[in-house]
C-alpha cells in the first residue's frame, strides 16, 4: 500500500511539473486563441537563465528565479510583437506556423556555441535536498516546493483574471477584439501583458524543472512542452484550473503505467487516454461547448 502511495506521489510530482508549463500555455490560449508552440522553448530559456543565475553568477536562488522570469517576460513580449502581432488577423494557420518557426528558432539559436551551446549541462542543486518520511512515504523538499509553487500560481492566475482590471481586460479581449476596443481596452497592451505573464511563469517552471531533474540542454523544452500542451487540452484548453487537472491526470497515468504495466507503454497509454477523452468530451474535461455566434 505504501508502495502504491509512493508511486502516486511520484505521479503527483510529475503532474505538477507539467502543470507549471501548462498554466502559461492555457492562459495565452484563453486570451488570444493561439497555441503558442514556443512556450516549451521559453521554458528552456528560463531554465538556462536560472541556471546561469544561481550556478554561474552566484545569485541567491530567489533572485535567480526573478531574473529568469523578467528576462523571459521580455522575450515573450518580443516574440509576440515580432512573430504573432503582424499575423493577428491573418488565418489561424499562419500564426500557428509562425509559432512553430519561433520554437525551432529558439532551439537552434540556443544551440549555437556563443549562446547556450548544444551540450548537456549538469545543474548543481542550489538548495540542500531534505528527505522526509510522512506516514512511511518518502517525500523531498523539492517535491513540496514544486507543489506549493503550482498552487500559488494557480491562485494568483485566478485572482488576476477574475479580480483585477487587467484580468477583466483580458477576458474582454478573449471575447472580441473590436468590442474590447470600443470599451476602451488597449488590445495590444493586454495581449503583450498576457504573453509577458505566461512567459514569466514558463521561466519559473523551467528553473524548478532544472532543480528537480538536474540536467539542461537546448532541446529540453520539446517533450515537456508537448506533454503540457496535451495536459492543457485534456483539461480544456483556455481554462486555468483545467490545465492543473489535465496535468495531474497525465502525470498519474504516466507514472502508474511505468510502475505497474510497462515503462515502454507510458507515453502510448498517456496519449491514448487523451484521444479517448477528446472523443467523449471534445472540449476537454472542464470545457463547455460554446454556442456559435450568429
Amino acid at each position, binding site marked *: 500500500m505504501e*508502495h502504491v502511495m*509512493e*508511486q502516486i506521489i*511520484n*505521479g503527483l*510530482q*510529475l503532474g505538477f*511539473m507539467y502543470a507549471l508549463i501548462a498554466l502559461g500555455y492555457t492562459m495565452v490560449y484563453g486570451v488570444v486563441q493561439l497555441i503558442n508552440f514556443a512556450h516549451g522553448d521559453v521554458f528552456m530559456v528560463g531554465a538556462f537563465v536560472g541556471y546561469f543565475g544561481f550556478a554561474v553568477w552566484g545569485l541567491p536562488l530567489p533572485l535567480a528565479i526573478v531574473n529568469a522570469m523578467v528576462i523571459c517576460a521580455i522575450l515573450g513580449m518580443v516574440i509576440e510583437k515580432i512573430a504573432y502581432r503582424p499575423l493577428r488577423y491573418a488565418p489561424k494557420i499562419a500564426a500557428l506556423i509562425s509559432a512553430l518557426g519561433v520554437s525551432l528558432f529558439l532551439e537552434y539559436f540556443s544551440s549555437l*556555441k556563443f549562446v547556450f*551551446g*548544444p*551540450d*548537456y549541462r*549538469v545543474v548543481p542543486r542550489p538548495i540542500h*535536498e531534505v*528527505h522526509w518520511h510522512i506516514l512511511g512515504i*518518502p517525500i*523531498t523538499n523539492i517535491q513540496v516546493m514544486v507543489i506549493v509553487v503550482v498552487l500559488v500560481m494557480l491562485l494568483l492566475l485566478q485572482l488576476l483574471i477574475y479580480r483585477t482590471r487587467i484580468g477583466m481586460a483580458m477576458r474582454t479581449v478573449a471575447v472580441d477584439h473590436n468590442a474590447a476596443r470600443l470599451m476602451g481596452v488597449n488590445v495590444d497592451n493586454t495581449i503583450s501583458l498576457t504573453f509577458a505573464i505566461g512567459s514569466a511563469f514558463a521561466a519559473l517552471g523551467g528553473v524548478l524543472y532544472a532543480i528537480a*531533474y*538536474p*540536467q539542461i*540542454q537546448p532541446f*529540453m523544452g*520539446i*517533450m515537456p512542452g508537448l506533454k503540457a500542451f496535451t495536459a492543457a487540452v485534456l483539461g480544456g484548453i483556455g481554462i486555468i484550473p483545467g490545465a492543473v487537472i489535465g496535468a495531474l491526470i497525465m502525470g498519474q497515468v*504516466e*507514472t*502508474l503505467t*511505468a*510502475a505497474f504495466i510497462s*515503462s*515502454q507503454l*507510458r*507515453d502510448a497509454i498517456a496519449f491514448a487516454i487523451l484521444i479517448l477523452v477528446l472523443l467523449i468530451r471534445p472540449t476537454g474535461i472542464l470545457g463547455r461547448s460554446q454556442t456559435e455566434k450568429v
Partner: protein
Amino acid sequence: MRFKSKWALILMVLMLGVALVASGCGQKAGQQGASGEKVIKIGFVAPLTGDVKTFGESAKKGFNLALEQAGNKAGDYTIQPVIVDDRNDATEAVNVATKLINENKVSAIVGSLTSLTTIPISELANSNKVVEISGTATSPKVTVENGKRKDYIFRACFIDPTQGTVGAKFALNKLHAKTAAILYDQGNDYTIGLAKNFEDAFTKGGGKVLFKGTYAKTDVDFSAVLTNIAQMKPDILYLPDYYQKVSLIGKQARDKGIKATFMGGDGWDSSDLDYKTMDGGYFTAHYSGQDPRPEVQKWVKDFKAKYNSEPDSFATLTYDATNLLLNAIKTANSSDPTKIKDALQATKGFSAVSGSDISFDQDGNPIKPVTILQVKDGKYKFISIMK
C-alpha cells in the same frame, strides 16, 4: 538558351555525366599533391558538439597526436586529414560521411565514436569501398550486418557482448552479487547490447536479474521505475548508458533510497560524469592510465606533455585505431582502400596502448582484454584486467 530538339538536351546531359564520371575517376586514381608527392586523405568523424561532445574532443586529440607522432606520413604517403562533426546524430553522420566519401574522396575514415552514428556510416563506407576503423563503437552491428561481414570495417575496441559478459562475471565473482536490476535505453543499440549480454552472463553464472526496464532517450523522470527497483533491493543496478543519462538516473536512484552498487559500460568514461552520485560504481573500460605496461605509461606521458591532461578511453582508442590504420597503410604502401583493408585484416602482434599483441578476428574485432574501473573520490581507480 533554347534547344532545337530534345536530342540536343539529352546529348548535353550525357556529356556532362561523362565529364563528371571522368573527373571523379581521375581524382581517385591520381591523388597526388601539387608538388607531386603521394597524398592519402583520411577522414575523421566524431561528435565534436552535442550530448557526448567530450567523447569527440578527446578522440580528436588522440587522432591528432597519432598523426603528429607519425610525422603525418605512412609509408611513402603524406596524410591529409579531414575532420568533421556528426553531433552524435545518425542523420548528420550520414551527411558528413557522404561528403567525406564523395567530395573529399578519402581512402579511409577513422571514427565515429558511438555505435548510433558508426553503424550508418559503416554501411555507407563499406558499399563505397572505403576503409573505416572506429576506436570505440562497440555494437556488433558495426562490422557485421545480418550475419554478413562488412569487409572494409574494423574497430579498435572490444564489442558489447564482451563488455556485458565481463561486467556480469566481475559482479558475480569479485563483488559476490546475487541479484541485479537493469535499466537501459530502448532506442539505442549500444545500451540494448550491453543489457542483453549482461543479463545472459549474469543468469548463466547463477545470479538473478530481478528487473529489466527500459526508457526513451528523452525521458528525464525515472521515479516510477526506480521506486519499483528500490522495493526489490538488488545488489547491482546495471546502467549501460552514456554519462549524462546515468548521472541523472543515478541521482534519482539514490533519492529513492536504492543502495545497490551501480555498474555500467565505457559510456561512463567522461569528465562530465557526476562523480559524487556515481561514487563506488564500477564500469568496464578499454584502458586505464594506471595500468603499469610501458606502452601505457609512454602514451600518458606524451599526451600530458601535449594537452596537459590525462588521456581517457576515447583518446586512447582513437589513437590506437589511427595507429592500426597507419600501420596498414605503411604495410600496403598504397592509397587503394582494398589493399589497406587486406593489410589491416592481416595485422599480427600489433602493440597498442589498450592491449598488446593485437590481431583481428574474422569480424574485424580486435582480440584483447577488458579493464575494470571504479569511480572513487572524483577519480577512476584501476581495479583489474579480465578476459
